């Protein structure tokens, strides 16, 4: 009964104690744990443990071991040498090829706890210390410098007696990179590293391992700087490159100097049109006057003497005849009028080619011009519709140069036609003109004399074109009538312009009332009988009135033709 009560009391006390301890926050320590054991030289070894929960009370730890096949338990001989929570086994306490059964006990006021036991055989836990005295040397050599790394064995390891054999390993890395290059050095204590980049900094580390065991830790890195060097191949290439660059420079300079000739050789210039006497540089200068003046040859354009160039005759026709002529011209310019009569020269007007033929035939410089002049007159005579005028004008394009000195635009010849209205009125040439005196005085021009068509009906009278002044006014002079009487043309005869047909054709008008008909002693013409066929034609003629625009009306009705050209 007492036993029973004792045990009950004991249980109760234990429970109370546990309860109290839990409420107070203290308890027996938790189980410690052996983390590992290591032997650096196969002669001693150290074990470390990790304490568990200390239960809120100061806890002590003790390590106990026993050898295999023996029951004797020994406690750790040295807790201090290896640091906290460790046990150091000296040489006397270390036996190889024997298992140690080791456990750690944690004890505090509340109780104790034991770790899991661990079996250790010292020969299998060998991990040497790091190698000693790592040195790195930069050695200059022919292609480039190399590194010579040297080190010593860890202090405690006894390799000399052969008790422990160590193999070494080293690794190299450029300080800016991340990857290491590893080399196995075997049992030797030196190593050469080649093919390193110039100018870079490298870090070297060494470690070792026993023949059966664990690798040691790496030594702290040794830094070394590779000096700048130039590979022989590189310097050779640099020399080659410099030389080539120099050659290239010389070549380029030569080409540059001989630029034009090279260009001429490679890209031969396309021959352009050349006009004799034409200087393209003057074009560039932008002064057209000079340029054109350069074109002016000795004989061109004729400024003073038009005599041999210009038309000698002006053939003036009757309106009807002209109509015929014109009509023929319209239909077939070439065929029917090929046959030409010498006196009129009309045939030449019909075709340009014919004209040139005639020119060739005649061999006379003035011949063709003569013909042209005649054509001019013909063109001028009746008021034509525009097409007809154009039809006439086409064979004459391009216009003869000597007549068209200042042709503005267009292929059409700007003819300055002097309309001669055949007049059968007794209008003596000499008696006209007072009405229409104009200041035709032009520089270099003689007195203009215009001859009107002889009032002799149906007969043509000829005038001689004296000059063409710079304002494109034909200055005519009546030819001396071989058969007729010598007419006194002291005066000047003028024609009054009636109208201007849009193709620069002047319509001259004879004002019956105004024109003094000079009395021709040999002729009897009635003043009033100068109705012009023209007038008849031009039924819807405008009364003489204000002239068309652009014409400067000179006092007596003459037109400054130059204005029309503009």
């Amino acid at each position, binding site marked *: 009964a007492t036993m029973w009560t004792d045990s009950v009391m004991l249980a109760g006390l234990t429970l109370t104690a546990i309860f109290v301890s839990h409420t107070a926050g203290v308890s027996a320590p938790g189980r410690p744990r052996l983390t590992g054991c290591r032997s650096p030289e*196969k*002669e001693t070894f150290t074990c470390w443990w990790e304490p568990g929960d200390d239960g809120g009370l100061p806890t002590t730890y003790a390590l106990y071991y026993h050898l*295999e*096949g023996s029951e004797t338990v020994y406690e750790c001989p040295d807790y201090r040498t290896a640091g906290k929570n460790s046990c150091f086994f000296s*040489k006397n306490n*270390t*036996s*190889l*090829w*024997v*298992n140690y059964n080791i456990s750690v006990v944690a004890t505090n006021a509340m109780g104790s706890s034991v770790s899991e036991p661990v*079996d250790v*055989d010292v*020969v299998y836990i060998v991990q040497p210390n790091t190698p000693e005295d790592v040195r790195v040397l930069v050695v200059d050599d022919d292609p480039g410098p190399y590194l010579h790394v040297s080190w010593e064995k860890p202090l405690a390891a*006894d*390799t*000399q*007696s*052969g*008790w422990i*054999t160590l193999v070494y390993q080293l690794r190299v890395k450029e300080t800016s990179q991340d990857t290491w290059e590893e080399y196995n050095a075997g*049992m*030797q*204590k030196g190593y050469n590293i080649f093919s390193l980049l110039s100018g870079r900094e490298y870090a070297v580390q060494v470690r070792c391992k026993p*023949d*059966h065991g664990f690798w040691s830790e790496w030594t702290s890195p040794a830094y070394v700087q590779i000096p700048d060097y130039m590979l022989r191949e590189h310097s050779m290439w640099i020399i080659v490159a410099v030389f080539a660059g120099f050659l290239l420079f010389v070549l380029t300079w030569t080409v540059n100097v001989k630029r034009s000739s090279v260009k001429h050789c490679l890209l031969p210039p396309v021959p352009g049109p050349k006009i004799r006497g034409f200087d393209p540089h003057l074009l560039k200068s932008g002064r057209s006057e000079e340029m054109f003046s350069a074109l002016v040859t000795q004989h061109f354009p004729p400024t003073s003497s038009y005599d041999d160039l210009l038309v000698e005759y002006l053939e003036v026709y009757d309106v009807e005849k002209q109509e015929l002529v014109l009509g023929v011209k319209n239909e077939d310019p070439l065929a029917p009028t090929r046959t030409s009569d010498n006196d009129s020269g009309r045939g030449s007007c019909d075709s340009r080619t014919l004209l040139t033929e005639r020119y060739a035939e005649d061999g006379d410089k003035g011949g063709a011009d003569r013909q042209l002049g005649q054509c001019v007159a013909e063109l001028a005579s009746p008021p034509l519709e525009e097409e007809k005028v154009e039809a006439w004008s086409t064979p004459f394009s391009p216009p003869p140069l000597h007549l068209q000195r200042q042709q503005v635009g267009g292929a059409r010849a700007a003819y300055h036609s002097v309309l001669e209205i055949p007049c059968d009125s007794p209008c003596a040439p000499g008696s006209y003109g007072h009405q229409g005196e104009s200041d035709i005085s032009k520089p270099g021009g003689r007195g203009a004399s215009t001859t009107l068509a002889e009032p002799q009906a149906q007969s043509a009278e000829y005038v001689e074109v004296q000059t063409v002044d710079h304002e494109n006014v034909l200055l005519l002079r009546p030819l001396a009538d071989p058969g007729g009487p010598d007419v006194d043309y002291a005066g000047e005869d003028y024609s009054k312009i009636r109208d201007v047909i849009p193709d620069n054709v002047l319509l001259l008008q004879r004002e019956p009332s105004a024109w003094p008909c000079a009395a021709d002693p040999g002729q009897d013409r009635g003043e009033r009988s100068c109705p012009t066929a023209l007038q008849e034609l031009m039924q819807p003629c405008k009364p003489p009135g204000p002239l068309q625009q652009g014409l400067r009306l000179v006092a007596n009705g003459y037109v400054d033709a130059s204005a029309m050209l503009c």
Partner: protein
Amino acid sequence: INRQAVLIQACLLCLLRGSVALPLNCADESSSPVPCTSISQDKLLDRVTQHAEFIYRITEEVCNQYEELYIPYPLRGLKNQGGGTCTSMSFPNLGSKTEIQQISDMRLLHYMLILAQSWVEPLTYLQSSLKNNDHAPDTLVSQLKWVSDKLTRLEQGVVLLISMEEGGAAPPPAALQQALSEPQLGVPDSIFHEYNSLMCLKKDAHKMETLLKLLKCRQTDRLSCTL
């Protein structure tokens, strides 16, 4: 990875078997050790040491394989489940460097000879035991066979070395031989029996290798020792 390297090395060793076996030709022809003058002592010692190294590597490989196959992780490394030691207590366990350095070369050779001889039978038994268990892979059995062969040659080499030593072919002291009793490896034919057996073999192979290396550095002035 380490094991694979060891395996590859073992295969290479198998190929080199002929060259390794060369120096021991003299001893093959007769059971009693005949002094063979065809090979120098240094070379012979080198070859014997190589044998010991190979034996250890292959045994380690076998043990690791066996552990992976049959031994649960918490029990690994724990030898002697069910009691027993590799060697009896009376047999001197040369467990420290100081202890070993006090022993003469001849005595070391004798020690190694006994150790090697003690494993010939257990190895045979181990092989048959593994063969009987159908679960054991063929590689294990073949490797054990290889170890057994190499151990025999090592024994012969040690015998030669003893004969080359001063003192002639004196047999090992009987006391030593008697001290070496049958290791108590637990219940026969059990997994732990096999496992313990292998572990003990590995340990003894390591011991022999270490002793031979010591002997090598003692007897010759080799660069590998002085450096």
